[in-house]
């Protein structure tokens, strides 16, 4: 069972890989406003990779509703639990 820090670390690695930006550091409050290349196109790529790596599936409403990284990680945690 992964804890919230491990989930955040894994999500951060996915962001770094997909957005090709090694300096990305995620926090619960991080939003698309804080990361230059995180837009609605790359959001899909991130979601697809997160689903693959955590072996989970998001609902479309969830994908559209994340207001920040914290909400995303919380949703992942619920699905893993």
């Amino acid at each position, binding site marked *: 069972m992964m804890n919230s820090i491990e989930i955040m670390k894994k999500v951060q690695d996915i962001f770094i890989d997909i957005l090709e930006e090694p300096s990305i550091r995620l926090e619960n409050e991080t*939003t*698309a*406003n804080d990361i230059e290349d*995180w*837009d*609605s*196109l*790359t*959001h*899909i*790529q991130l*979601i*697809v990779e997160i*689903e693959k790596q955590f072996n989970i*599936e*998001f609902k*479309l409403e969830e*994908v*559209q509703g994340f207001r920040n990284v914290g909400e995303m990680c919380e949703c992942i945690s619920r699905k893993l639990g």
Partner: protein
Amino acid sequence: MIDIVDEILLKISSKSPMHCKLLRKNILSLDSESRKTAADYISTFLTVLPEVGVVADIDKSIDAYLGMVNMVMGEQLYFAKYGKYRYSSFDEVEKLVYSNIGYMTDYMIGLGLSQFLWYNHHQLFSFFKETIGRCKGAEYLEIGTGHGFFFMEAIKSGAFQRYSGVDVSAASLRLTKAMVSKFVNKFDKYVLINKDIFKFDDEPIYDFIAMGEVLEHVEHPERFLAQIRNLLKKGGKAYISTCANAPTIDHIYHFASIDEIRSMIKQSGFSVESEITISVDNIPEEKWEDSKTNLTYAAILT
């Protein structure tokens, strides 16, 4: 000064900041002339909607557009998981989309706005505009006039003596007619025909035939290419656009690569005179094949 494009972006930013971020990048990439064209067309488009019976102010239009964006997002997730489009038969999408008047109206508004807000759609328009500017002839035919932007641009080019637009949707033709009447006064050298293209007499009378974004919506795209061949004069040219790995609810023919499109074009007896391929996700070409990249394609055929 704030124009209609700024106004739209401002409203979208309050409803979907992440999507707005993408649109701002797209709009910033336009040169000043393209930006002006975008503002003119979008502004006219929103003005004519009520004239064709669509009750939609700017806020409702933006909601319709964002509804389409969400639909595309859902289909992209499906495609990433299963590697195919959700639907493959025309009957399925006929029921869900084409015969659903409410859905179709919102979809038409969404597509109209996307023509200038989306990078790939805008690139297609530029490619078409450039091509038509170099052409000359007597008869122009457009199959599937849709929102009427391309038909309008062909008329504005003045490259042909007569312009015909054909569409199975009477609503699309009403919209096209309303768009044309806003841009050109007393222009009587065009005709809009509500007919199935396969019910045309197979006389090769056209110098130029345009068919944008049709092939991916039909079960047998090769039949449409063959029909263009039948209707095109010897020495005539055709403009086609389509896409590979580009899921939306009503895309039913899945081209898995640009080579598949080229191969169908060749089998239909055409040669590619010029072409353009756009990666929607801005993925470099060497990764296109492995990553099932979403690609938009257009070509001039001879």
